[in-house]
């Protein structure tokens, strides 16, 4: 194995350029989000989020060097060890962690705090990839499925216990990895259908209409399909299950979900019902983005984001600044950059020679996609408000480092994809 300057030639530079573009745009937007005309601090000012973000970016460069210098075999070899450590940290966090913003998700090191849950993402991606890539692993084997779901479910449950629902939900995105690696599409379809029925039930207050529609579809399927007993009974059972889900949604909404979670779903459906209360975030976020127009108000000229109308404007709602100050053009550029990153990562994953590297690549793309879709979706009112960051844009060291490591491990593996063959 050759080492040295050569490695940089093998890295996938298109991805690195997209990465750099996103990070730099993110940095400018964080400055715009916290900029206060009356104080007129510079983008470098360390008392601002933008100044600190620059430090985080600088640290990321060091982290990237580290990721690249480390032997590529390390990632596969130590995936389970790292997984064990992160699980331990996740257990420790509720006990010794410090509370930030109502969530006990931080581990303090001096004045700096880190969020183990941010790092749990790439470590879980590594561990899951290692399991998928291990000899004799079969995606359609029930035992293997249970183990894999257990592996992904464990950090998810621990993070849920920290009440960080958003980050926990990120782990559901591994479904894409499993799908790509051969899991029956049935699960994914069932999941999507369940979500679809769930939202439909919320949208249509009178559930009788839904039940009626289901019965009609059932009748049509039975009449026009093959009239085999097995098929008909399966359809009937399926219909009963669906109707059960519909009935249970109401129960879940009113009795299981906490009031603030109910409100987030209500806000999604009709933010205008209580624009000053639970609809505030979505309403204000849409106002900020919507007021940007086609060309935007210009850098540092936004009024909604700057004057705190939008909550969490440098973290979860950073996309509002883009929408307001850069308009549809700016939003277009950001969306296209993310699409390019996702497609490029798929391209990279597909060219891997080892199943481990490919599965890891899909882990990377799944996590990015989930963050991208849910974050932007919530700012424009397509998803409920789930507090997860927009990769590379949202302010915060842990998140930036987590995403950076996530991406650059893949690039490291990719740079050495030729060696895998040699080893085999």
């Amino acid at each position: 194995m050759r080492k040295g300057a050569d490695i940089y030639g093998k890295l996938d530079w298109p991805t690195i350029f997209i990465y750099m573009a996103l990070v730099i745009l993110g940095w400018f937007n964080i400055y715009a989000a916290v900029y206060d005309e009356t104080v007129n601090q510079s983008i470098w000012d360390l008392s601002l989020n933008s100044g600190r973000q620059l430090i985080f970016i600088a640290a990321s460069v060091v982290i990237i060097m580290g990721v690249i210098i480390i032997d590529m075999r390390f990632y596969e070899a130590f995936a389970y060890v790292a997984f064990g450590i992160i699980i331990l940290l996740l257990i420790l966090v509720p006990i010794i962690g410090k509370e930030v913003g109502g969530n006990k998700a931080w581990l303090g090191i001096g004045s700096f705090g880190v969020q183990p849950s941010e790092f749990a993402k790439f470590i879980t991606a590594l561990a899951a990839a290692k399991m998928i890539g291990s000899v004799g692993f079969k995606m359609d084997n029930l035992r293997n499925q249970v183990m894999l779901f257990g592996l992904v479910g464990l950090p998810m449950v621990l993070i849920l216990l920290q009440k960080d629902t958003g980050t926990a939900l990120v782990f559901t995105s591994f479904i894409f990895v499993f799908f790509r690696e051969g899991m029956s599409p049935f699960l994914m379809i069932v999941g999507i259908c369940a979500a679809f029925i769930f939202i439909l039930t919320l949208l249509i207050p009178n559930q009788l209409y839904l039940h009626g529609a289901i019965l009609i579809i059932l009748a049509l399927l039975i009449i026009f399909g093959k009239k085999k007993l097995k098929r008909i009974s399966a359809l009937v059972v399926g219909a009963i299950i669906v109707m059960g889900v519909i009935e249970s949604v109401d129960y879940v909404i009113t009795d299981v979900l906490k009031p603030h979670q109910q409100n987030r779903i209500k806000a999604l459906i009709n933010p205008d019902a209580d624009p000053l209360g639970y609809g505030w975030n979505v309403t204000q976020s849409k106002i900020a983005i919507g007021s940007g127009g086609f060309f935007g108000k210009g850098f540092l000229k936004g009024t909604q984001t700057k004057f705190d109308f939008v909550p969490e404007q440098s973290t979860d709602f950073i996309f509002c600044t883009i929408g307001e100050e850069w308009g549809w053009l700016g939003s277009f550029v950001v969306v296209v950059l993310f699409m390019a990153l996702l497609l490029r990562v798929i391209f990279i994953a597909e060219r891997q020679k080892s199943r481990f590297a490919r599965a890891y690549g899909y882990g990377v793309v799944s996590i990015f996609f989930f963050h991208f879709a849910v974050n932007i979706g919530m700012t424009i009112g397509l998803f409920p408000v789930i507090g997860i960051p927009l990769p590379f844009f949202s302010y915060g060291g842990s998140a930036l480092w987590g995403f950076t490591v996530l991406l650059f491990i893949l690039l490291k593996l990719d740079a050495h994809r030729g060696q895998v063959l040699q080893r085999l």
Partner: protein
Amino acid sequence: MNEGRKEILQIIFILTGLVFLVKLFSIQVLDNKYAELADSNAIMREVEYPFRGLIYDRNNKLIVYNTPEFDINVIRNDIKDFDSAKFCEVFQMSREELRKKFREMRERQEYSPYKPTLFIDRLSNLEFAKVQDHLDEFPGLYVQARTTRSYTTAALANALGYVSEISKSKLEKDETKIYRQGDYIGQSGIESFYEEQLRGKRGVKFKLRNVRGIEKGSFKDGEYDTLSVPGQDLVSSIDIDLQQYGELLMKGKSGSIVAIEPGSGEILSLVSGPSYDPNLLTGRNYSSNFVLISNDTMKPLFTRPLMAQYRPGSIFKIAQAMTALQEGVIKPETRIYCDRSIISCHGNHTNEDLRGAIENSCNPYFHGVLRRMLNKGISEDPYEDTRIGLEEWNKHIRSFGFGSNLGVDLPNEKGGLIPNVAYYDRAYNNRPWKFSNIYSIAIGEGENLVVPIQMANFTAIVANRGFYYIPHLIKSIGGKGPLPQYKEKQFTTIDPAYFDVAVDAMEQVVESGTGQYRAKLQDIIVCGKTGTVQNDPLPAHSVFIAFAPKDNPKIAVSVYVEDAGQGARAAASIASLMIEKYLIGETKRPHIEQYVLNGQFLY
């Protein structure tokens, strides 16, 4: 077996991106709603409240001025580590009150945990000074300053009126769009009548603000801003010293005193008893005080000089006399026998001329006078004849300002009633009526109704010998004189020459008649007339009108004291004391003053 799965994922990702771009295009480019909402969000139309005009008395003594007051607003989501025990201590309220405040706040229609909501309203300067230093201990509390009215004396409350938050119904009716919710507006009295002049012009500043309404600089460098213009100062015709004296005299009584300068129509004092301290209707306790005052069974908010309608009583005989002279049905020398079989009378006179009849308030005389006026024999039908006569009579009496609003510069003025043909047709349900049915109007009883300010104005007419200016409280607006209608001389239909006999008779009333004991002054010739208005089963209202001096009169007064018996007692005493106070500055008859102050005239 995994073929096409890469493509499925690629399609999912690309579709998501496309959905976002389409949705973004629809809210950013296609829908203008959000841009407008953003403007109303961040561009604050900050109204710069002008100072409300001040009110001075006729001698330039300040009566009404402005003082700052403070509202405390709360942004629920900014409250952190709220120390309720400390808060209760600083703001001197009980825990129960605090809980109530929070409950009230949440129940407000405009309540949002993200925006400032009114929490404690109308802290006075003094109250605010006590809490000011502690405010930074309670994050989430924000201060909003504005001004409220203050009064230098406890007098003149009814005429001044009060200022309070504009009501919802008024706000909806306001077509000028000047007012906004929470704005103050003059609610009665001068404050209401001169609202337009007093309020001034509000300035507007467009400012950028953050979500808490905190200023973040001006919008487009103040290009659209306008400056506020303070309200115009008003100079009242009221003599505040005379007013206070009048209120002192009315203490414990129900009724009114109106004093007018005859030569200008300027109201020198307008006393309504009982009244209230105008300072009660300002500041934080406005609501609770308002409830107390408006529920008071003595009705202190009822402005008696303008709103209380009484039968005029004997003083109306002067107007009858003037009308009869003008119609030529009597002469000053005409004598009419005091026939007490028709209508009762008092004293021991028998056959007086006009002067003597006024002096002795002879009822049969004026019964006869009215008969001559209403039955002049123009028609042979006595019913028709009365109708013709009554219309003539009504025209003359109304020219004294009776029977309809004078047009005083105060709201809610009542017009009283002077009956005419149509009125009696209605009252008798179109059955025939003639003089013998309606003669009690001859002596100021019957259907006649007047308000005290009309009686004062009538006194001024006699003092002026035939003309008046519409009585008014404001003699100058912003240094530019009164409203134009108050500069126009109003004439009666009576020849000025006929007034001398009335003046002489009124002089005699005070010199040797019913007014001699309590209305007579040493160096000043006072002309007056008593009235004792029947008010069965309660005691009669005590009424007195007077002006002085006889030549070149400076003051005309009407006094009504409800349920206080004969006009010669309470009313005559008060009227003469007012004249004395105004013309001399103090009373030389302390026994009369004591008589008024100690007398129990309220039943």
